[in-house]
Structures are given as structure tokens and as C-alpha cells.
């Protein structure tokens, strides 16, 4: 382990209410001091962070790395490298791996793959039910002991509310966080676009907001009944934000995130039948987008995630409803967050908190801040650096992004994971 001196950066740490120019000192993989060096500090490596921002590494609550039979879409190597280049030092892995993350051996295998990839910390999310089929509970305690950080049924439904109730009670018994992506399957009815003017015009099977809000309302009721901690992932509409706000005010222990692209695109931005825009939940209206931004700004929505879903070309080459949903989104996480700051929708401090301290709080991790003694997970970025998304700059194996070819502002220059430089531009 070496001693690292990060010089003259703008240190932003919302958890500790820090925002000023200064230095950061790393010793033995941990944050040793900020501003003034620790006694007898001798730097092995000096990183000049002049005119750059230095903050905690990003913690992504929803990613998929594919691999395991899906390596044409992405591998641990390709996707964790993409994460490192995006400033992500910890990532939660959704349980809809193949096979699903429903036994300890699979979780251990994934942890092993992640360690070999030698990039960001991977936190598997355990399947809530066996094979994610929504009928029998998974071995949640064994999965937790194998390193799983939460439980979720990913995109698949638990149609029977009695089973969902029991799963949540059991999760609560082991103090496991339940991550819910609210979606009523019967109402979303295999849709692929927001139920509104655009889906009507193009004749696309559509998903009403109620598919999300009804599932969310059910889960809120069960959160109160069972005492289970619930985090709602990838919200897409105004009424969901209102419901979360009311639940928090009422005193329920719930939190929520939004995928970054939902704060930038609406149904009106969809190029007709361009499968790069096929994402679930679907892009909704301007009013929804605005309300989600406000929810992030006022704290109703706690955090931002990438909801990274890399795909191979074939998965997106078909008629729109037949293509696979999802966006390769790790590498646009930072520039799209900075764009919100430029639009004055949120402050830079709020944006960084939503990528660091807030998700750490949700996962109860001792990270996401530049606190002395914490593991030195650090992201250094140049907020002014412009770059184009193309095959020279892109790391993920999935090029399925609606922002392909766009010029982005703001780029990560260094990423450190436990004091080890895992990416430098």
C-alpha cells in the first residue's frame, strides 16, 4: 500500500459539509487526513487535482454486469472497467443474473468473479424468491452471509401479496433491505412505452403510470405491516414521488432512487422506433421528469443510479416492441448529473450526495464520504472537460445509449478504490 497525496482539488463531501480547495491524504488504503497532512506523511504518489473536483467514489444502486452466459452483452471485466472509468467504486448487482442470485454459491461465485476483475466493489443483491419466480422464499440469511447486501425480485413480480408479505417479514427478521422496483405486471401488460400521446401515435403497447403507483402503494402498505425497510428503485412518475413524500412524512422507513436518464428524457424525445430509447420504466412526460428532478432536489428521492443494462447489438436490432429494454448507462452517470447542475435543477452538492453519501446511507455502508478512517474510495473529475461518446471513449461492451455520439461535459480523471488507482484518464 502506498501513500497518496491528492493536491489542490475542490474537495466536496456533503456528508461532512465540506466544499473547499484543499488536499487529501491516503495511507494504507484509507483516508488519513484532509487539508493538513498526517504526521510524518511521505507521498509515494502525488495526484494534481487543480481545477478538479475530489469526492467520494460513486455508489451505484442498480447495475447489471451480464457475464455468465451473457458475455456478448458484457463481462465483469468490461463492465467493471466501465464503472471505474465512470467514478463508480461500489455497485449493487441486480439479482436477475443467469442463474438468478438465489443461492449462496452463486453469490460467492459472483463475488469471486468481481475480485478477479479487480475493479469496483460489487455488492450482489439477493433474489427475494427462488428463481425470482415469486412463489417460494430464497435463503435470505445464507445469501446475506455470502455477501448480499439486500434482497429484491428485480423486474419480476411477486403477484401474490401474501407471499410478498411473508418475504418482507422474513427479510425484516434478518434486517435485510428490500429493494423494490414497483411494477404491477397485469397493468404494464407487456408494454414498451409510456401510455400517452406518443405510444398512441406509434401504436406501441403502453404502460400507464398506475402500473408503478399501484405496486408502490401496495408495497408501502406492506412496509408498514411488516416493518421491513424498503428502497424503491427507478421511479418514473410524478405520482410515485408524491406517494414517497407522503410515506416519509408519515414516518415509514423508506427511500427511493431514480435512474439518471429519467431526469433528461421524456416520451417526446423518443426517435420513433429507435430501440436505444426502449427502457423500463418507460420515458414519461415533461411533468413527470420535472417532478422527479424536484423530488431529488427536495430529498424525497434520495439517490441517483445508472440502472446500467448493457446489451449486444442483436438485442436491439428488431421491431421496437421486440427489442430488449435497457440502457448502457454507467459512463453517462456523471455528465448527466452535472447537466442537472448546469440546468440549476439541483446543486452540485446535492448531485454528489445522491451518488455517494445517500446510497451509502441506504445500504448502511461506511463509505460515500471523505471521512478520515473510511476506505479511500475516491473519484476525481474535471467538471469542464468535454468529450464525445464514441467507440474510442466508451468502455462498456453495450453501446445501447440514446446519447451515442453526443458531446458530454464533465469527465472522471481518476478513480481510487481502497487507495488503489483503478482508473486514470
Amino acid at each position: 500500500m502506498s501513500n497518496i497525496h491528492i493536491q489542490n482539488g475542490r474537495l466536496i463531501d456533503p456528508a461532512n459539509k465540506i466544499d473547499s480547495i484543499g488536499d487529501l491524504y491516503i495511507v494504507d488504503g484509507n483516508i488519513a487526513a484532509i487539508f493538513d497532512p498526517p504526521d510524518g506523511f511521505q507521498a509515494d504518489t502525488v495526484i494534481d487535482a487543480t481545477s478538479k473536483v475530489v469526492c467520494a467514489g460513486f455508489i451505484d444502486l442498480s447495475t447489471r454486469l451480464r457475464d455468465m452466459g451473457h458475455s456478448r452483452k458484457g463481462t465483469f471485466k468490461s463492465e467493471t472497467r466501465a464503472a471505474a472509468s465512470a467514478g463508480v467504486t461500489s455497485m449493487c448487482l441486480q439479482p436477475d443474473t443467469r442463474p438468478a442470485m438465489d443461492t449462496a454459491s452463486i453469490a460467492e461465485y459472483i463475488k469471486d468473479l468481481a475480485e478477479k476483475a479487480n475493479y469496483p466493489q460489487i455488492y450482489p443483491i439477493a433474489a427475494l424468491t427462488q428463481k425470482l419466480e415469486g412463489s417460494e422464499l430464497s435463503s435470505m440469511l445464507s445469501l446475506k452471509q455470502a455477501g448480499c447486501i439486500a434482497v429484491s425480485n428485480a423486474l419480476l413480480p411477486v403477484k401474490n401479496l401474501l407471499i410478498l408479505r411473508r418475504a418482507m417479514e422474513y427479510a425484516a427478521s434478518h434486517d435485510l433491505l428490500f429493494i423494490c422496483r414497483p411494477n404491477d405486471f397485469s397493468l404494464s401488460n407487456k408494454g414498451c412505452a409510456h401510455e400517452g400521446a406518443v405510444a398512441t401515435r406509434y401504436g406501441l403497447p403502453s404502460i400507464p403510470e398506475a402500473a408503478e403507483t399501484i405496486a408502490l402503494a401496495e408495497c408501502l402498505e406492506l412496509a408498514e405491516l411488516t416493518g421491513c425497510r424498503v428502497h424503491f428503485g427507478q421511479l418514473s412518475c410524478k405520482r410515485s414521488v408524491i406517494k414517497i413524500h407522503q410515506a416519509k412524512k408519515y414516518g415509514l422507513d423508506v427511500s427511493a432512487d431514480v435512474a439518471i436518464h429519467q431526469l433528461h428524457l421524456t416520451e417526446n424525445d423518443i426517435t420513433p422506433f429507435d430501440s436505444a430509447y426502449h427502457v423500463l420504466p418507460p420515458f414519461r412526460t415533461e411533468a413527470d421528469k420535472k417532478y422527479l428532478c424536484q423530488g431529488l432536489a427536495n430529498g424525497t428521492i434520495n439517490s441517483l443510479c445508472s440502472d446500467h443494462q448493457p446489451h449486444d447489438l442483436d438485442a436491439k436490432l428488431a421491431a421496437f416492441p421486440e427489442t430488449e429494454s435497457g440502457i448502457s448507462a454507467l459512463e453517462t452517470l456523471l455528465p448527466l448529473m452535472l447537466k442537472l447542475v448546469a440546468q440549476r435543477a439541483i446543486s452540485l452538492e446535492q448531485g454528489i450526495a445522491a451518488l455517494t453519501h445517500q446510497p451509502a446511507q441506504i445500504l448502511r455502508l461506511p463509505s460515500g464520504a471523505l471521512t478520515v478512517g473510511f476506505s479511500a474510495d475516491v473519484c476525481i473529475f474535471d467538471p469542464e472537460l468535454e468529450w464525445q461518446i464514441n467507440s474510442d471513449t466508451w468502455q462498456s461492451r453495450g453501446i445501447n445509449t440514446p446519447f451515442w455520439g453526443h458531446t458530454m461535459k464533465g469527465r472522471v480523471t481518476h478513480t481510487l478504490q481502497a487507495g488503489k488507482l483503478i482508473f486514470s484518464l
Partner: protein
Amino acid sequence: MTHNIQLNSEGKLKHFLTIEGLDKALLTDILDTAASFVNPSDGQIKKVPLLRGKTIVNLFFENSTRTRTTFELAAKRLSADVLNMNIATSATSKGESLLDTIRNLEAMFVDMFVVRHAMSGAAHFIAQQTAPHISVINAGDGQHAHPTQAMLDMFTIRQHKADFSKLRVAIIGDILHSRVARSEIHALNTLGAAEVRVIAPKTLLPAKVETLGVTVSHNLTEGLQDIDVIMMLRLQKERMTSALLPGESEYFKCFGLTEEKLKIAKPDAIVMHPGPINRGVEIDSKVADGKQSVILQQVSNGIAVRMAIMAMAMQHNGASA
């Protein structure tokens, strides 16, 4: 916008995928060209050598009789060679992807694909992916568009009604699942119809349907007032089992077109239906076969209109000029 992919650099028709984005002059040009193929004395359609030496593939991923047959006849009247591919029962059932099917057919030196597919956007996808010298005609994609049907209906309307700007048109039935309805609405609005009215229960109307440029009624008796053109839509039987409607007899009672209901519309109103008809479900036989019905004329007109569209698309496709 993707829609412009159907026009070449000079704004001429290269593919025919949707009515949306095409202007009144172009639609009128299609109707005039179609009229030129019809012998004024006996209504017969002349055989012309416009597409001699060209190969047209009817690529039907969904079953169809009438549309495929009239496309085939239209191609033959243009002197093209026609290949009918019923993909529903061949390649894709062996696991071949849509794109591979297209690539294989391209390799056989075809000049035009006429595509029907169960998924919205399939014709756009093929037009985007196919070789530049190949034209794509949309013969119906999912719930999105069926533009040749809309054009043959405009042709039929024009045979009976002189001026689109004075017309009030009612489209009745399953708007939600209907690619025909969407294309008719665009065509009527582009040609300047005074009003396009959709009449259906809420279960058969898509969200925010008024944004397509229509007025909405849930009541056939009220909705038929002042109407010049009645377009009935086919109601698929499976809609009854998916809880969209309580049953055929109640549907017929509320939205079925009977002689009595027909009297509410203008006395010279014409009755249209894209077929196939469900007699006694959406339309009474007496109306379907009555003197105000132009349903069989629609079928006949399909040949001339599809000839016009195929000839125009092929003519303006740069690579084949």
C-alpha cells in the same frame, strides 16, 4: 425524424411506411396516379410495363388473404415478378431473426419488400436495415400503420365525395388495436377533412387519442350525426375474452351499424369497412350489402392504389433509376 426515411433527397417517395409526414400534394399524387391505371370506360385495370424485370417479395409475417392478394395482383399488373413468402410458417419458426431473413432475401437480388408484421415499427426497422436500392412498402405493422389501406380508402371516398374539406368522417370500433384507424386519421387530416370522429367505448380507445386530431364519442347514436363517411373497423373475436368488452351482443347493440343507426348519418353517407367483416358483430348484413356500402369497391381499388404506390416508390428509389 425517422419518417423522413420514406422520402429520398428530393422529397419523393422511396419507401411507403406511414402516412404521417407525407403532405397533401404527395397523397393527391398517389390518388391521381392510381386513377390513371383504371380504364375509365369499364373500370378494368390496365397491365403496364413499369416494373418489368423487377422482383417484389411479399413478406408476410402475419396471415392475410385480401391484402397479400391485391399486392400480388398489383405487382403483376406492373409486370414485376412476385414472390410470396409466408414467413409465419417458415424461417422465423426455425429461429431465424428478422434481420437474417431480410439479408437472405436481399442476396437474391430483390427490389422491393412488401411487409406485414405483428409488431409496430417492423417496416421502419426493415427500411432502415435493408440495402439502399430496395424499397419497403408497409402492408401493416402491429398497431401502428396500414398506409396502403388508408390510401385505397381515400381513393374510394374521392370516387363518391368531391371535396375532402367538407367531409365529416366517423371511424367506429376498435381504434386501440387498429393500424388502419391510425393511418386513416392521418390521411383524412392531411387531405383536410372537416372532422374525423372516433366512436368507441373507452376500452377500445388509446390514451390521449384526441392528440391524433380527432373528436371522440362513446355513443354511436350521437356520434353518427352529420356524418358523410362511416368507417367501420373489424372487431377481433379475442377482444371479447380479454375483458375489453362484455360480449358480442352488447357490442352490437351499442356500436353495431344497423339500418336504423345508419339513418342518423347524412342520407348520402357511404359505409366502409377494411374487411374481413364480422357480420352481426360490428355491422348488420343489410348495411354491409346495402346500397350505401362501398366495401367491395374498396377491395377493387386496392389494386390500382397499390400499383401507384409501388410504381412511385420504385421510380424514386435512386439506386434503381
